[in-house]
């Protein structure tokens, strides 16, 4: 009796297994993995471009080798009224199913960012479960599709190149979830790395390079300005996760390059006579990278102090420029509003919250800085100098 019962249970279980089948099964060679997507505005429509690697051309198994003509990736593009419509129209053209689970870079074209804003396209990214919220996001100068189509030589795909660049020290890492956090909060605005494409024009070595020199500022999701050069360095200093960068000074005719390795910035809102001002103080640590002054004597305390003063002055200047740009673009990228809320919650909610857009461009800031030259490198004086 027991055997018969067991037999029937096994038959039922087996039938159930066969009935359900494996509805979700998708072999790896029936899937097109999207490594990066670029979103542009084209008239009234949105143009979506995706970068798909071609495993067949990667030539790992078997002999291969030498046939450099074939690229290991391909770019497909399609338009639509919404992003998802464009993607489904694109799917009609592809023999493999598009899979966004490995998409790690999203590039937004400048025109789309300025006219329509970033906020509307976020729904496409967050609603489907197979998109990564840890994908890096950036705004491109010009058309995003051109950025995707660049012939970067150092990496196999431009997507890899972009991703490495976006997570390196020269840029601030902005992922989709960071942007969402910033866009939702009142008193803070999102900012994005700003990618440009430049060419290497050496004869025989023509190639494209992707350049991140600054950041794009947005207000309510719409791009309102860019920060470049010194202002970008200022934003780096104000940002809560600092990464080192280099600064070059002209010190009495001689150039000096210093690496700013650590920075601690404190942003304090203060109420003076009912007026809100901010006091910003930065402590930076600097180390000398290159000194073209043969006469400088690092044993002399006064000379070292002079370098520190120069650095502190430049740092203050950078921050002031960054704040000025932010106020001009009316984009609170650092989150001064949020700082105010944390310091004076009741006053913020009553007085400033609704009018922050109007008040922020007029805000007054006091910036001070202090620098500490803590490392001179492997040699204490310029070794090109003749011994006395």
């Amino acid at each position, binding site marked *: 009796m027991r055997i018969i019962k067991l037999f029937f249970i096994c038959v039922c279980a087996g039938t159930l297994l066969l009935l359900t089948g*494996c509805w979700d099964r998708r*072999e*790896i060679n029936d*899937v097109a*993995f999207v490594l990066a997507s670029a979103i542009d505005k084209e008239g009234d429509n949105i143009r979506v471009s995706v970068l798909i690697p071609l495993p067949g051309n*990667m030539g790992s*198994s078997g002999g291969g080798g030498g046939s450099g003509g074939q690229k290991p990736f391909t770019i497909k593009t399609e338009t639509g009224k919404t992003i998802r419509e464009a993607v489904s129209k694109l799917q009609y053209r592809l023999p493999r199913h598009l899979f966004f689970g*490995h998409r790690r870079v999203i590039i937004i074209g400048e025109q789309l960012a300025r006219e329509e804003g970033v906020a509307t396209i976020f729904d496409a990214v967050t609603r489907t479960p197979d998109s990564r919220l840890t994908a890096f996001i950036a705004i491109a100068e010009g058309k995003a599709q051109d950025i995707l189509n660049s012939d970067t030589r150092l990496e196999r795909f431009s997507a890899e190149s972009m991703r490495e660049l976006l997570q390196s020290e020269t840029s601030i890492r902005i992922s989709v979830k960071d942007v969402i956090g910033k866009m939702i909060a009142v008193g803070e605005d999102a900012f994005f790395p700003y990618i440009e494409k430049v060419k290497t024009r050496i004869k025989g070595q023509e190639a494209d390079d992707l350049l991140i020199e600054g950041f794009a500022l947005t207000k309510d999701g719409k791009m309102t300005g860019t920060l470049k050069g010194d202002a970008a360095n200022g934003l780096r200093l104000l940002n809560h996760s600092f990464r080192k960068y280099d600064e070059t000074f002209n010190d009495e005719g001689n150039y000096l390059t210093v690496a700013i390795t650590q920075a601690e910035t404190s942003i304090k809102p203060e109420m003076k006579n009912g007026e809100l001002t901010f006091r910003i103080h930065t402590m930076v640590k600097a180390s000398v990278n290159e000194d073209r002054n043969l006469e400088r004597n690092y044993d002399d305390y006064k000379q070292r102090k002079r370098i520190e003063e120069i650095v502190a002055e430049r740092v203050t200047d950078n921050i002031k420029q960054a704040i000025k740009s932010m106020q001009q673009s009316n984009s609170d990228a650092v989150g001064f509003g949020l700082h105010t809320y944390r310091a004076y919650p009741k006053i913020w909610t009553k007085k400033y919250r609704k009018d922050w857009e109007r008040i922020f461009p007029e805000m007054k800031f006091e910036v001070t800085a202090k620098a500490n030259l803590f490392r001179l490198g492997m040699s204490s004086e310029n070794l090109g100098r003749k011994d006395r």
Partner: protein
Amino acid sequence: MPTKAKKAKSLPEGRLDHHAIDQFQDVPIRSTIEENNKLMEELFKDSSDIVLRKFDIENGPKAMLCYVDGMVTTSAVDDALKALMILEGDAFTIDRITEQTLPVVQASKIQFYKELLTNLLSGDSVLFVDGQDKAVCLGLRGGIRRSVAEPETETVVRGPREGFNEHLRTNTSLVRSKIKSPRLKMKSFVIGTETQTNVILTYMVGIVNPRLLEEVENRLSDIRIDGILESGYIEEFIQDQGYSPFPQVQTTERPDTVAAAILEGRIAIMVDGTPFALIAPFGFWQWLQASEDYYERFMASTLLRWLRLASLFFALLSPALYIAVSTYHPEMIPTNLLLSIAASREAIPFPAVIEALIMELAFEALREAGVRLPRIVGQAVSILGALVVGQAAVQAGIVSAAMVIVVSMTGIASFTLPRYNASIAIRMLRFPLMLLASVFGLLGIMIGVMVIVGHLSKITTFGVPYLAPVTPVEPSDLKDVLVRAPWWKMNKRPKYLGTNNIRRQRPQP
């Protein structure tokens, strides 16, 4: 602690053969040589290896010596014969012959045929004297047996290299020489009506849990079968859960393993005719213990144990994980690895499941064939199988390189388990997990693993829960489970064996 006495499976009573030895229970030794001779000749009619040697004791009655050719030490039998044929004195009764004449250490007097036949067929020589109603059994056993050699299935780098052989007395002497204690008991059983196999139960009285001992004895006594040829027969009779894939009794060829187990409070069963001894009880965590662990220093042993645990998971789950992740969850693999796998799978005609099943079945077939290959051919064929076939299959585009890596990793991992019967269980369970993974993905693997763990938690080995001492938790026993505590810390025996005598070391000063 054993809680229920299990009724062992055995043959129904009514089907015993006619010539089983039991029916000679009450047949006495006849008084005259002729009658004994006639009975013996009739019994051993077509057995040419039973020798019935008639002779005259000097100045005395007739006598007959019976023995099995090949199972006695002929020179010793010659000496005994000489002592009788050239008799000094006038001992003509069995009692006086035994006490005075025979230069034999083991001599016993018997009156009934059952004992006589059992002893004769075990290698004793039997002496009948005319006019006496008793016979003498001379323990002059000999015969050629495999010598004590290194055990082939359990080699160590450091440790004794003696292994059991097929001779029970050799085996018991090997164990006895390791534990020179009067508390070491060797209880003898005879199981198997036709084979009359000697089975010896070994334990330390005072350390072993008496209820466990009683349970094992009951199960051994309940076995009714015509022949016990290997300890595996006994294992299947006495284990707790017959239908479980997991072994509940440990097998070993090494006397030091047996001695260590007995000192902990376990029970060992040695069977004549096989070098494999059984040790009960045997839980999950013994799968990861090898005797070498206790001879090397504790740090190395601990790391090796962790390696074995990791290998256990690899051996069980690798192919299933590969199938599940590549088919249902490609987002879990890092992008570059995924592109490499995709590149290697580009031209393969089979889905991942079929590929995995083909490779795994081929591997199992290769392994099985390797057991039976003659040694000379074995080397060449294994190289052929591994390199050429594998490589050729990849190049022909039938299987992908990634699959070959997964299968070889699985194979290597399954060989790191020191207990062979455990690794068989893992090998078997790989296949259902692969099928579950191919249908339900990672969820299927989860379900499979939950079923396996649930099953492991439920089964017992001689009353002791299989996963003890991890569940039910006994913190003082965990020192030998995932780590190997240094010897100065191992001062207590495992509690889950229910021993009365917990302390094994005096506290260090």
